[in-house]
C-alpha cells in the first residue's frame, strides 16, 4: 500500500433508521498515520457514523460510498471489517454475562489472525501478549479475567475497549466518546493507549465531546458534525474554538451547510 492511498474514504454518505435520515451527506478522508477528531452536539449523528462504519445493520445506508483501503467497506459483514482491521470502541460497550473477557478476546484475535493468514496464538503466547497489553493500558488483572463488561463501571468499560483495541491492533480505530465520563487518570490511560498505537500505517477517528482529550491525543484534523453533515474541518485549534464558543454557530451554519466545505484542508 502506498502512502497516497487513503485508509478510509467516505463520500456523500447518507444513512438513517426506520426511514428517518440521520447522516445527510458525510465526506471524510483519513490517510494512514492520521488522527481525525469528530466533534459535534448530541444527536448530530456521530455514533450513527461510527456504527455504520462498523457494519451495524439496523442503519440503512441510503446513499454514498465508503472505501476502506480501496475496497467497498459497506459490502463487508461486520466481522469481515473487523478482520480487515476496522475497530470500533463503543460509546456504550455491551455487558455480556457468561462470556469471559480473556477467552473471548483470544477467539476474536485468532479469528483475525486466521483471516490474515497468520498462525493462531496458543494459550501461552496469548497470555504473554495480554500481559504486555494490560500494562500498556493499566488494566487490572481482575478486570481482564472477569465476564465481558459485566458489572464494570463506566470507566472500566471504556478502558476495556482500549484494551481490546491494543490486543487486536486494528488498522483503523474508531473511538466513540471513549473519553466521556472518565476522570483525568482514566483519560490519560485512554490517550496513552491510542498514542502507543499511533503508527504510519494506522489511522484513528476519535469522536469526542471535549477538547480536553485532544490535549492528549493531538489530532491532525478536527471535524464538526452537525445534523448529519460535516460543517467545518480544521486544525486542532478548531477544537479550542468550539470549546470556547459552543456549537451554536455551527448549528446556525448547518442550515446552509452546503456552503460549509466538508474537506477544506489539503492532505500532504
Amino acid at each position, binding site marked *: 500500500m502506498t502512502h497516497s492511498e487513503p485508509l478510509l474514504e467516505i463520500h456523500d454518505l447518507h444513512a438513517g433508521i426506520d426511514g428517518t435520515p440521520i447522516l445527510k451527506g458525510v465526506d471524510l478522508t483519513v490517510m494512514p498515520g492520521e488522527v481525525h477528531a469528530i466533534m459535534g452536539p448530541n444527536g448530530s449523528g456521530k455514533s450513527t457514523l461510527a456504527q455504520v462504519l*462498523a*457494519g*451495524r*445493520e*439496523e442503519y440503512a445506508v441510503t446513499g454514498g460510498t465508503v472505501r476502506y483501503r480501496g475496497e467497498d467497506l459497506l459490502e463487508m*459483514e*461486520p*466481522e469481515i*471489517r*473487523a*478482520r480487515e482491521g476496522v*475497530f*470500533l470502541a*463503543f460509546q456504550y*460497550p*455491551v455487558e*455480556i*454475562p*457468561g*462470556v*469471559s473477557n480473556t*477467552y*473471548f*478476546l*483470544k*477467539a*476474536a*484475535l*485468532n*479469528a*483475525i489472525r486466521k*483471516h490474515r493468514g497468520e498462525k493462531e496464538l496458543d494459550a501461552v503466547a496469548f497470555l504473554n501478549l495480554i500481559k504486555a497489553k494490560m500494562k500498556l493500558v493499566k488494566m487490572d488483572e481482575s478486570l481482564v479475567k472477569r465476564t465481558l463488561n459485566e458489572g464494570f463501571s463506566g470507566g472500566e468499560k471504556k478502558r476495556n475497549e482500549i484494551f*481490546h483495541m491494543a490486543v*487486536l491492533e486494528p488498522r483503523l480505530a474508531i473511538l466513540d466518546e471513549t473519553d466521556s465520563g472518565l476522570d483525568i487518570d482514566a483519560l490519560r490511560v485512554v490517550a496513552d493507549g491510542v498514542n502507543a498505537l499511533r503508527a504510519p500505517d494506522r489511522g484513528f477517528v476519535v469522536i469526542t465531546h471535549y477538547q480536553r482529550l485532544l490535549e492528549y491525543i493531538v489530532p491532525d484534523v478536527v471535524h464538526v458534525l452537525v445534523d448529519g453533515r460535516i460543517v467545518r474541518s480544521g486544525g486542532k485549534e478548531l477544537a479550542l474554538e468550539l470549546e470556547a464558543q459552543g456549537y451554536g454557530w455551527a448549528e446556525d451554519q448547518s442550515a446552509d451547510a452546503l456552503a460549509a466545505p466538508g474537506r477544506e484542508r489539503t492532505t500532504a
Partner: protein
Amino acid sequence: MTTAPVDLKHTAPFVADWTALDGQLNGAQPGFVKALRRAGIERFQALGFPTPRQEAWRLTNVAPIAGTAFHRPAAAPAGIGPEDIRPYVYDGCARLVFLDGHFAPALSDMAGLPAGVTASSLADAIRAQPALVEAHLARHAGLDHPFVALNTAFVRDGAFVHVPRGTVVETPILVLFATTAAAAPTVTYPRLLVVAEAASQATVIEAYAGLAERAYLTCPVTEVVVGAGAVVDHYKVQKESVAAYHVATQQIHQDRDSTFDSHAVLTGGGLVRNDVRTVLDGEGGHCTLNGLYVVTGAQHVDNQMLVEHARPHCTSFELYKGILDGRSRSVFNGRIHVHPGAQKTDAVQANRNLILSAHAIAHSNPQLEIFADDVRCTHGSTVGELDDDAVFYLRSRGIGADAARSILTYAFASDIVDRIKVPAVRTDLAAFLFDRLPRGEVVREAV
C-alpha cells in the same frame, strides 16, 4: 357431561399387562409390594390418562401415549456391552445400569462405596432389607398422579440407594436407565428410591438414555428421602431418543436442616414431562432445583415444579433455563406453596427461556400460594431472543455471526453449567452444547 366409559381412558391394555405380570409374579414379591402394585393399578384405572381439560395437563397432551400399544420387555436384551453405554456413563462413579427396565449386573459396578451403604437393585433390596424398603417405598410419591399410579402398579425392580446415618459417600452413584432398540414400542417403569439417613451425604446421578432413535415410553418415579442434616446432590440427565415419551415424577421429602441440590439436564425425548416436587418438612431445610432444557425440532418439554414449604425457616432456590430452537415447545409451571405457619420462608424462583427460532414457543407460569405472612417469595420468568446489541458487539471484534450467536447461547446456559459440581457431568453438558451449537469449536475457545 357424563363420566367417560372406562375404555375411553385407554387403561385397558395396561390393566391387561398388569394382570399378566401379576400372574407371573405369583407370590414372588412380599405382601407389601403386591399391595402397592394393586393399589397402583386400581388408582390408574380409576384416573385414566390425563386430558388437556385438566389444568395440570393443559399444555401437554399425552394422547399419543394413551394411543400407543406398548410392550413391556420381559428380560434384559442380549448383546449390550460397555461400549454401548459408554456415552451415558461417567468416569469416577459407582454405577447401577438397567437395560429395558431390567438390572444389568455385568454393566454395573458398585466397588468403592463405604461399608454400610447400599446401592443395589430394588428387587435385591426388597429381598435383603424388606423392612427398610417398606418404610419408604411409595410413601412419598402419591398415587393421585396417574403416571405415578401406573409406575407403582408395575413396581418390580429399580434402584435402591441407602446411606446410613452419618455416612459420607464421596463417590457419585450413577443410576442409568437405558432403553435399547426393540422393534415395537416398549415401556419401562424405572423406580429409584434414595434414602439418606440423618447427617449423611451422597451424590446420585439419575440418567436416562435411548440407545436407538425409536419410540418408547419411559415412566419413572424417583423418591428421595433426605434425613435431618443430610446433604443430597442429585442430577438428572435425560438423553432419551427424540422419538421417545418420558413422563417422570420426582418426589423429595426433606427433614430438618437437610439440603437437597438438584440439577436437571434435559436434552432428549420427543414428549417430556417432569413433575418435580419437594416437601420441606423440617425447619432449616434448603433445596436447590436447577435445570436446563435444550430442545429443537418437534421436542416438547414440560416441567411442573412444586416446592412445599411446610415448616418455618426453610429456603428454596429454583432456576430453570430453556433454549428452544426449531418448532419446540416448553412449559414451565413453578408452584411454590407456603403452608400456614411456615414463617421466614425464603423462596426464589426463576425461569428464563431463550428462543432461537421464530417457530419455538415457551410457556412460563409462576404460581405462588402463600398462607404465611412473614415470608419472602420472589419469582421471575422471561422469554426472549438473543440480544442484537450483544451479537453486533461480538461481530465487531471479528467473531463470525454464527459463532457470535452460539457464544451468547452458551453464555445464557453457562450459569447452570457452572453450578454442576460433578466435573464429568459438567464437561458432558458443555461438550453437548459445543456439539449442538453452530461453530461450537469457536464457542469452546471463547468461553
